[in-house]
């Protein structure tokens, strides 16, 4: 007993050190995975965020055609980085619909003029309602949605060149 309380603290501390050392070597996963994957997107109806494109409603995601749902904003720097890759996806035949988070029409217009417009529809999500309902916790995020409005895949962060084939593959699996 006496031995136990004398050496116990050292034992506990070594256990902690081992655990902490292990955790420090692990890449820290900062991403919050959506719990909505495999589930249908709840109802919504967003007004247009830009004069050239219609707004976005749940019905548009249930038209039988798989799509990419891109959560973005004109104030978001990684969104600028991913713009050319969204264009590439678009050229490869992917249909992309956008949800602009907490944005102003003038800023949206300027962003699209500068960085290109790969979207067929852009809804204005001023209160992050749609963003939260699909389980996204930041911008940009890109969701693969099948023809019935069910979320198949979530991509967190900006889309990079290496992600383009993967996203096309997911769309193809969904029957696009």
């Amino acid at each position, binding site marked *: 007993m006496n031995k136990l309380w*004398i050496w116990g*603290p*050292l034992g506990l*501390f*070594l256990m902690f*050190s081992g655990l*902490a050392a292990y955790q*420090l070597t*692990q890449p820290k996963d900062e991403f919050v995975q959506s719990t909505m994957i495999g589930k249908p997107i709840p109802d919504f109806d967003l007004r247009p965020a830009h004069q050239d494109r219609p707004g976005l409603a749940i019905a548009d995601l249930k038209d039988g055609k798989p799509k990419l749902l891109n959560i973005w904003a004109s104030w978001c720097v990684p969104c600028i980085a991913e713009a050319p890759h969204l264009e590439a996806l678009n050229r490869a035949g992917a249909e992309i619909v956008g949800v602009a988070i907490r944005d102003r029409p003038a800023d949206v217009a300027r962003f699209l003029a500068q960085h290109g417009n790969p979207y067929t529809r852009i809804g204005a999500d001023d209160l992050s309602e749609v963003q939260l309902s699909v389980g996204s916790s930041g911008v940009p995020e890109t969701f693969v949605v099948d023809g019935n409005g069910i979320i198949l895949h979530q991509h967190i962060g900006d889309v990079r060149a290496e992600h383009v084939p993967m996203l096309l593959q997911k769309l193809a699996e969904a029957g696009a």
Partner: protein
Amino acid sequence: MAAELGLAALWLAAALSVLQLIGGALAQRDTNSDLAKLVRPAAVMQGLLAGFAFLVLLYLFAVTDLSVKLVAANSHSDKPMIFKLAGAWGNHEGSMLLWITVMALAGGLIGFVERRLPEQTMQATLAAQAFVGLGFYAFLLLSSNPFERLPEPAMEGMGLNPLLQDIGLAFHPPTLYFGYVGLSVAFSFAVGALLTRQVNPDFARAMRPWVLGAWIFLTLGITAGSYWAYYELGWGGWWFWDPVENASLMPWLAATALLHSVSVLAARDALRTWTIMLGVVAFSMSMLGTFLVRSGILTSVHAFAADPERGTFILGLLILYIGGALLLFGLRASSISEGDRFSVTSREGALVFNNVMLSAILGIVLLGTLYPLLTEAFDVRVSVGPPYFNPVGAVFTIPMLMVMAVGPLLRWRQDSFTRVKWPIIISAVVMVAVLALVVILGSYSILADLGLAVAVALGIGSFMPLRGRNLLRVPIATWGMVVAHFGIAVALFGMASESAFSEEKLAAISVGESTQVGPWQVTLDAVEPVAGPNWTAIQANLGASYDGGTSIELTPQSRNFWAPPQETTESVLATRWNGQLYAVVGNEAGDGRWQLRLWWKPFVTLIWYGGILVALGGLLALIGRVKTDLKRRYVVKRAGDRRAEAAS
């Protein structure tokens, strides 16, 4: 030039701590060798140099020297002077420099004043202090140099996190640091005593003022931090069991236990190994807290300077120091005799109970804080919060506080409960009466009700050690104990009352409309934009009247800072003797209505008044102890002089 001077001073201080370590180690063979005699001067000089380096950093921030990387990254020429200075420690590098400065100054001070212990123990202690310091010097100089220059001076600084532009927060971290680092002295004393195996009441008396001092700073730091979180974050809560809050609470719990066990050791020469153990644990908890915050290993709102590389460095230091000290403890503890025995019903018995309970609470907080780390290793994400900490902590806190109401009445060594039966009966009756009263008042939360009952009983009990005594002749240290124990009762009353009787209202109202929360009627008179030196804000002008009385004006704001851009809520508080009204303004709802979040929190302010009383009690105890020590020192000196006279 100034930055280079600071850096040079830092390198010199590090070099002196090497000298201090070597001298102290050699002194274990021969206390009178030339190198051993250098230990104390080296400690003093090291303290002065580190202090100088910190002053240089303050100067660089005061003049906003933008050629220094740290200043450019954390300051801005338009910032008010007080926040420029606060910027010096409101970042990773600066705060590590503050850490090392406080450690070096503390080492210098013991080197300068402490003459009571055998020289060998002192040299071992200073060597331990230098050894711990060296690791932090290495960390600072090799990976976090605060004096690094930019190749090209910046045009303008990057500002300071606006959340940190708050007078409370400017002084909250350094206060905690004084506490954390003050405990390093207790750690070094413990290691020194383990090395020389000299654990006795003199050792306890030498260590006690340092533990008390560190504990006072920790108490104030935690109290201030809790109040800051309460009014600045705008969430209406005062404690969130956030890993960083826990990181400050754990050293406090260990230091509180140490404070009591060191008193037993000083008065009765008992609990020797246990006191040494707590001395090691208290500072270990400080370092562990620093590690958790700086490594980013746990997710926290506080995780600034999160950097795995730094985390690895601090973990290395942790293993070296905590592991080393615990290893030394394991090797030496069995060779230190246990000290005097005592009966269960005695002052020592009550203090041991207090120590066991505090250690249990410490264990619970530690487990809760580290649990997510454990489960993440198995890829399970959990968040441990109030549903765990509150009830599990209370299981140990409530019995501890009940014993606390009576413990100080018991005599040392041996006593009987029959002698103190009346105080026990009075406390129990008061508890039951208060419990009945709050249930009648309509609060059915078990923890809060029990908390209120124990608080009132403890509040009365804390004054019982004074009964039947001439108040003018009660030692200052005893007054310190009474005030500190009463402070705990006051704080507990505030916590329990806040949780039992708070009312919350989330309203969306237009200008001219009013809403009710508790006894307050709140009217939205106007909403207007206002501007400050580095921010603009939407301000709501509220008229609030308590129970139909005259209306007072409150102006909560939603502020936007521009360097760097960030939005903060400036909540406002209307304080009455019996509680606080807490108001936060939110966004416009879109139809001309504004979101208002209002709380009425009865007696909530007692939480922090209690914390201040606890710290005040600590201060009184410190004054009392130092006074007695000085007197003792004077008497010993006189006796020595007389002996010398008689001999000549």
